[in-house]
């Protein structure tokens, strides 16, 4: 298969998978096999492209032209390759996890769950391989819409409220701000193609470019830069594997990925460096890092704490992008991957705890490490990676981010990174501590409905398998960061 067709297949395969999944509605095992097969094939397809991309080829294909000059087209470049690899790999793991999780919870509407999940992944692929900003926007909106039924999966009032916030924030920012930025860019430049060095330089004054940058950064609501971040905690009503998808695989990563794309290919980092607004926006991102971390510190609900931690970590990537230096871009790209692996591990653990013990609060987790050693070990790996302690993946990306901050002599950025590292430690380490070193609460033992499995057991094997894989990945990426690093270095064209 030619690389061009492979690109098309990568987007089409998950978008077509729901047909198969729905057809197998009555037979759960074949249905889940269909999901696993699709995700496995997708990863292989994406991986088969990666050699070409590393060798410098850029497979591209155009599909349609809804408006004259605005194409739906795909082009693979290193950053998109990285995102696609991450998303497609984590989809396999998440599918495994979902099967274990949904079956043990006896969730309803499992068929539509897997269908929308596949569509969401297809949209993420579309975002990753988008050849121009218009295509990216199309799939960005499709991703929002396809994840809405997942977020509201529970179907109760809470889910509806959360879904409202989710849709309102994401569609609101994208239609008012991002679409405005797109129309404006289009009317100024006559193109929305991604070009190395950007399309705006020489066309607009720094003042207009500044306004555009503000529209882009805040318009990409999925990047959750304050003040457009509240949808993320609201979306925590979703089932845990969906939260994992939102946080680690598709949605928020699509947001920061889009920010990086815009910075690199629409503005161009050389052009951005001369715009004063860039620095101000970087401070907004820096403030988001600290504020969200402080809020996370005060959350007792484990998933909510993870959500606020995500807001904080996303702004790392936005800040990296706005440092407008090649090293910062490398750091941002690496952080997409590293944070993805670590955060998905943490969410998997939170879900595993919920499945095994029906606990959602951190204050209830005393001594849980003795019952669920695998899960809590994985949690510890994830937590260490979030803090950035070797030998975990988080160290690598933080290293590049710091290098970027130092290179640009941004004392504020460097200071924020150090501060937030401390805050990360402050909100993650206590969980690890209580889980392993506190004695279990008596009340929990005597809770009605607890069978023996709960007290001595891990979550279902598929759940544990999934979280072990991602935790192992988090460790492995510390020792073997070559794949993502090579891609990012090729993008920035420099050496570390």
């Amino acid at each position, binding site marked *: 298969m030619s690389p061009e067709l492979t690109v098309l297949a990568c987007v089409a395969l998950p978008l077509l998978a729901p047909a198969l999944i729905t057809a197998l509605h009555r037979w759960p095992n074949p249905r889940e096999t269909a999901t696993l097969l699709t995700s496995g094939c997708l990863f292989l397809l994406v991986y088969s492209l990666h050699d070409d991309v590393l060798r410098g080829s850029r497979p591209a294909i155009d599909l*349609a*032209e*809804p*408006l*004259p000059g605005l194409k*739906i087209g795909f082009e693979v470049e290193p950053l998109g390759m990285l995102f696609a690899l991450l998303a497609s790999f984590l989809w396999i793991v998440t599918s495994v996890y979902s099967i274990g999780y949904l079956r043990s919870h006896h969730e309803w509407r499992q068929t539509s769950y897997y269908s929308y999940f596949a569509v969401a992944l297809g949209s993420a692929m579309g975002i990753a391989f988008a050849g121009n900003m218009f295509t990216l*926007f*199309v799939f960005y*909106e*499709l991703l929002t*819409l396809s994840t809405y039924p997942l977020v*509201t999966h529970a*179907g*109760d009032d809470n*889910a*509806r409220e959360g879904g*409202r916030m989710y*849709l*309102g924030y994401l*569609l*609101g920012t994208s*239609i*008012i701000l991002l*679409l*405005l930025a797109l*129309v*404006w860019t*289009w*009317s100024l430049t006559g193109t929305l193609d991604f070009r190395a060095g950007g399309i705006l330089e020489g066309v607009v004054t720094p003042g207009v470019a500044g306004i555009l940058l503000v529209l882009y950064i805040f318009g990409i609501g999925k990047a959750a830069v304050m003040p457009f971040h509240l949808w993320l905690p609201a979306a925590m009503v979703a089932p845990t594997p969906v939260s994992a998808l939102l946080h680690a695989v598709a949605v928020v990563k699509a947001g920061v990925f889009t920010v990086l794309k815009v910075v690199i290919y629409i503005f161009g980092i050389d052009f951005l460096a001369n715009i004063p607004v860039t620095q101000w926006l970087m401070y907004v991102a820096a403030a988001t890092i600290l504020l969200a971390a402080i809020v996370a510190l005060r959350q007792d609900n484990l998933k909510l704490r993870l959500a606020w931690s995500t807001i904080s970590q996303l702004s790392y990537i936005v800040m990296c992008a706005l440092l407008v230096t090649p090293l910062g871009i490398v750091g941002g790209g690496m952080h997409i991957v590293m944070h993805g692996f670590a955060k998905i591990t943490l969410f998997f653990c939170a879900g595993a705890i919920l499945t095994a013990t029906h606990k959602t609060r951190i204050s209830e987790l005393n001594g849980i490490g003795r019952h669920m050693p695998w899960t809590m070990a994985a949690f510890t790996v994830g937590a260490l990676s979030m803090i950035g302690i070797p030998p975990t993946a988080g160290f690598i990306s933080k290293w590049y981010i710091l290098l970027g901050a130092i290179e640009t002599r941004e004392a504020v950025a460097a200071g924020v990174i150090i501060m937030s590292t401390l805050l990360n430690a402050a909100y993650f380490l206590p969980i690890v501590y209580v889980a392993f070193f506190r004695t279990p609460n008596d009340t929990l033992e005597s809770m009605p409905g607890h069978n023996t499995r709960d007290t001595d057991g891990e979550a279902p094997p598929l759940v544990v398998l999934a979280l072990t894989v991602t935790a192992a990945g988090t460790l492995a990426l510390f020792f073997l960061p070559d794949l993502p690093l090579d891609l990012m270095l090729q993008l920035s064209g420099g050496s570390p």
Partner: protein
Amino acid sequence: MLISDLPVLQVVIPLAAAPVCLLLRNPRHAWACALIASWLVLAIALMLVQRVHAVGTLSYAIGAWVAPWGIEYRIDMAGALMVLVVAIIGALVMPFARRSIEHEILEKCTGLFYTCYLLCLCGLLGMVVTGDAFNLFVFLEISSLSSYVLISLGSRRRALTAAYQYLIMGTIGATFILIGVGLLYMMTGTLNMVDLSQRLPEVANTRTIMAAFAFVTVGVSIKLALFPLHQWLPNAYTDAPSVVSAFIAATATKVGVYVLLRFFFTVFGMQFSFDAMHVGEILMLLAVAGILIASLVAVFQDNVKRMLAYSSVAQIGYIILGISMASAAGVSAGMIHLFNHAMIKGALFLAIGCIFLRLGSAELRDMHGLARHMPWTMAAFVAGGLSLIGIPLTSGFISKWYLASAALSGGYWPLVVLILASSLIGLIYMWRVVEVAYFHVPGTMMHKVREAPAVMLIPTWLLIGINLYVGMDASLITDITRQGAEILIGEALQ
């Protein structure tokens, strides 16, 4: 021979089929007659578009009396687009109508219904193709009178008052147009639009012509339900039979917009309309007010048909907003939205028609958990709703994109923000329905509810299909509207 008669055939076929429907006692036969007539009209419309595309503006002299003495039928690209809109909707609601009408209208009235429907179709098509100002008034009244009857056939007694209210306002509007045409004739001695446009500049600065302009503008604005002259519309759309709501919502107001375009650009000329009479500023103000106020009112409606009706008032605001910019880009954007909105609203009202067939109600409170029982209908409703909001890959996005870029190139900054932000209000009111249908627990009455029959679902989904197709590849429609707008603006510049 036959090819050159296409413009008139288009009007004559429904006109001739109408009495036949009346004579056919059997409702099935009357329906078949109306169906064949409306499909013939669609076939002719497609041929017309193709011919206009190939040879340019068509002109046809009725009874071989040459213009300006005889009545001229004239179809340019803008007219061809309108003919297409009316014909598509007309042809697609007919297969839908049989089941829906059996359910909503007394059997003895069925023949009358199809008669009035065909007369309405004839009137609307006639308004588009005619090149004669007085003939336009006649066709306007044919379509209006028949639509009053159609609306009054609604199952609730409110339909009668709604039709009555529409009759009063519509007649005042039509009489205003008549006054305007009379004043024009007084000053120029001609009724042919092209002839008028050539003679008007000599007398343009007289008060009579200004009065004529004002009368015509207000009269047509009533027909197209421009805010704040829209009061008849919500009641009429809410209480009319479902098929009628879909048909009228998708066509009648759109033809009104087209008539406005004809008068502004062809008859009076852009210079007079926009530079001398400043109608652009007035329309823009009213359009903005209409978009905001009607959208907000729509949010608070508990009847879904009424909600869609207010949404129509807002969407007409978008179309007028495009026209008020008085640039080729703006007019073309307005026409794109005219086409797209006709398809969107047609589809949404048909979906509501499916729901009405099964529920006997269009109230939001009766729709709890409906999506589980009528998944295809609700999916069509959601797809139409997304298009209304302007999500990419739907036709609504294309309109929004063109409107926003037209506003940008005209330097109307606040308008760009308004266009984008108001689509979010659309999100709010459409999502109220989605939440009720998808998240609420179905009531006990709901168990009997089944999916709508295929004959009703297929037309609905065909309209949705047109929406999605335009969203994927708008080149055809943008091509037509660009040519149409260039002809309108070009005529004005000559």
